């Protein structure tokens, strides 16, 4: 099949994007077309069952779009959304190299500026493309003060290439390059405190979010979208395959990471801490660890297991203390209140 035939076929099947919001095709919209939200990332993508990253990207697109364009670093997100000749994206989207999403986004932003457009540019990368490989490009983009929102989907290892450790992999997690065994109990080093490094660039806004708290995540995206200048968001996105938990547990795992203190949800403006999501009842880290196969060795007979669990608990307690995550009683904005739902979604913290 030639490219032209295939393209024509796809055009006939899906039509063309309306050129303007008031342009209609005349046909009755299908229920999918009539969704009361912007569908920036459509179905049919090849993410694994229960993928936290697919969910996070969709949540970001929902409130960032439609007037955006995306530079996407190599990684799971790029691979599973764009199996040629199909694309799950419904916004202009460019695939960059693994290491230069921020640089490509800088160029796109400069081009938009040159053409007198305010289309916001987003840069997407995984933790490998952000914490490690693309770090210098990211630092440069922040330093040059481009009007770009950089979103890092943090699933704490190189999942696309087969679960290799990254500098974001938490301490003691097993990966294919930090296997737990006789010599070591998983990764020897600590998770890099990227947010502090980003904040040290003195940018207007840097924050962490989690797929378990979608309203909080979307509020942060909207806030960042309104800022003219570099902004950064790191989204904790569980990977059922790499973290070895059941696909149905993605949200539960992400929630527990926040509730135990290992993944604090914080906001920094110009390098200063401006907001945190308080933890209503801090969970022991074991509640979080025991759901995941990557920490299974911490629950065996090995005498080092207890020490590692205590170490992770100490790291969580450190976060709670440093960021002041202990709330003063129940609060609609804390981990308990932010999750609350009610009939038709009207509860504290709901949209």
């Amino acid at each position, binding site marked *: 099949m030639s*490219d*032209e035939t295939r*393209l024509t076929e*796809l*055009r006939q*099947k*899906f039509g*063309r*994007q309306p050129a303007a919001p008031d342009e209609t095709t005349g046909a009755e919209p299908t*229920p*999918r077309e*009539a*969704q*009361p939200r912007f*569908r920036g990332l*459509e*179905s*049919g*993508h*090849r*993410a*694994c*069952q*229960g*993928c*936290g990253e*697919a*969910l996070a990207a*969709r*949540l970001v697109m929902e409130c960032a779009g439609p007037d955006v364009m995306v530079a996407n670093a190599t990684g799971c997100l790029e691979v599973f*959304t764009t*199996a*040629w*000749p*199909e*694309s*799950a*994206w*419904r916004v202009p989207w460019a695939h960059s190299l693994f290491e230069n999403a921020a640089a490509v986004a800088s160029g796109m932003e400069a081009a938009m500026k040159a053409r007198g457009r305010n289309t916001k540019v987003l840069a997407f990368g995984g933790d490998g493309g952000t914490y490690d490989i693309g770090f210098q490009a990211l630092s440069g983009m922040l330093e040059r003060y481009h009007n770009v929102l950089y979103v890092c989907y943090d699933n704490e290892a190189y999942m696309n290439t087969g679960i290799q450790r990254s500098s974001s992999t938490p301490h003691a997690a097993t990966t294919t390059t930090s296997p737990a065994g006789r010599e070591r109990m998983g990764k020897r080093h600590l998770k890099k405190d990227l947010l502090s490094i980003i904040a040290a660039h003195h940018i207007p806004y840097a924050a962490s979010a989690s*797929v378990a708290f*979608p309203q909080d995540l979307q509020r942060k995206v909207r806030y960042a979208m309104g800022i003219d200048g570099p902004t950064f968001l790191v989204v904790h996105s569980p990977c059922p395959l790499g973290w070895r938990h*059941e*696909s*149905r*547990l*993605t*949200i*539960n795992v992400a*929630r527990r990471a926040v509730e135990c203190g290992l993944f604090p949800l914080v906001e920094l403006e110009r390098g200063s801490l401006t907001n945190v999501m308080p933890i209503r009842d801090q969970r022991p880290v074991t509640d979080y660890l025991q759901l995941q196969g990557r920490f299974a060795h911490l629950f065996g007979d090995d005498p080092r297991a207890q020490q590692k669990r205590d170490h992770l608990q100490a790291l969580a307690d450190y976060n709670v203390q440093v960021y002041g995550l202990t709330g003063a009683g*129940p609060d609609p904005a804390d981990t*308990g*209140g932010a*999750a*609350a*739902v*009610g*009939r*038709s*979604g009207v*509860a504290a913290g709901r949209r």
Partner: protein
Amino acid sequence: MTVLTRGAYGLPGTSLAYKTGNWRSTERPVHVHAKAPCHAACPAGEDQQAWFAKLQEGRAEEAWQVLVAANPLPGVTGRVCPHPCQNACNRKTMDGALAIHNVERWLGDEAIAQGWTHPVAEPAPDAPVVAIVGAGPAGLSAAYHALRHGLRAALYETAPEAGGLLRSAIPRTRLPRHLLDAEIGRLLSLPGIEITYRARLGRDVSVEELASDHAAVCLAPGCQQGRAWDVAGALPSDHHEGLALLREFMDHGQFPPASRIVVHGGGNTAVDLCRLMKRSGVQQVTLITASGLPGPQTAPDDVLNVVPRELDEALEEGIEIVPHATVNRLIMRGSKVIGAEVASLRKERGADGRTRRVTFEGTERVIDVDMVIPCIGELVDPEGLEPLVDRGYLRPGDTWGRLQDNLYALGDARGDRGTVAEAVGDGRRAAEAIAARLAGAEPEADDRGELTAEGLNPVYYEGAPRSTAPKLAVQQRGFDTEIEGDIGRAAALAEAQRCLSCGNCLACDNCWTFCPDNAVIKTVELATDGSHYLFDLDYCKGCGLCADECPTGYIQMQPERGP
């Protein structure tokens, strides 16, 4: 002209051509409207979850209409029911069960105050007529539900007023008469219900006559005859049986004089009698019961069958309760009783698997009394029902109350009932069975599963303390003023917000928000209930996330059908 190179270009949204639904291998999400435990436990068949959902939206009248679709007497049951719904409420595992009975009562009272009317149409003039003997809660409910099924109802009541036991045996401190009159009056004024007072079975009407003149006959005569009680053959000359004493008091406002009494029995009648007599000046009131007091040590089927709050109030008022005991012997001086010999007793399972009451030798003690009142239950008065009564009751063979083809037994007369709510439920089921039979069909039981607390996701519910109703202090309790007060509109609506909506959609959007594959489609932008979400199985990969994150258990993963 666009030059396409391999991998350079893909049109927006075209991944829709790739149906990831074929990745599902074992399970798919489905919407399952399981019974909420309150609904499953309700003997009257109310769906509390459904009417709480209306209240959550602030629609009190609609909530009341949903409520009265099952139970036409919510003001009554809200006051007198031992509320098995509340005991079953899944919220009890979190921060306390909902105060369901208080809200039900508030809705019932609000309906009276606002003059809300039953949404029941008048049946056709030639509609089949159901004859109903007895206008107590079972009979009234049967008449009302007959109407809802398009039938007419003809009630026959011995007394000059309707209400049965509600009027004759429940103290005003629990059930004010003006409320009872209002609810019964509203029901009896519905077009299609005829009632004949002072019509005694066996004297004025007979079952055979009724059966030949009507489409069906419902027998709801209640239990009017005290069970024979004597202790080793001795009966004092001034012997009084509990229910008769209570009825007499309700009519005349007086008890025979006594200063120390023992009441023997273990139901609401016994406790009501104890409390009224204590208030009327009896110094020492002791309740001897074969059952146990509620507590972790007591098996559920061994607990005293009394409305829990009534039991608490009785203890507050200084009623002494001796659980797991029986009256062995009366100590007489001439024909007057001066003491009761009490012994410990337990219901024990014998070798044949049947439960027996075993009295333990050596536990006998004597209580000084001047009156012993048995409250050990009543039997059906057999007058006019002779061939149907079997060992004291009518004993129908099934839950619909069928005795014979067109003959149904409801309420206390069945022998396996004991609450107003059960009687109301019997009336509803009998009417349903009659309507089905007239249509040439079988009535269908609702055999949906029940949603237990494990099926909920508790993280999505914000904690909220339970509302409480005001209560009269012990010194202020008399014979007329109601002891438990009204919860009030604000508290009732706040309490409704605590409902977890077990097994039914809350429209909270969690599934729609959390699906990583966009496979949950919303068909209505704003909704408050029901399922307006669709699963797009073309794209659903079967991860099970929606089912896990559904707060109410409305989404469940079920095996894929077929190969």
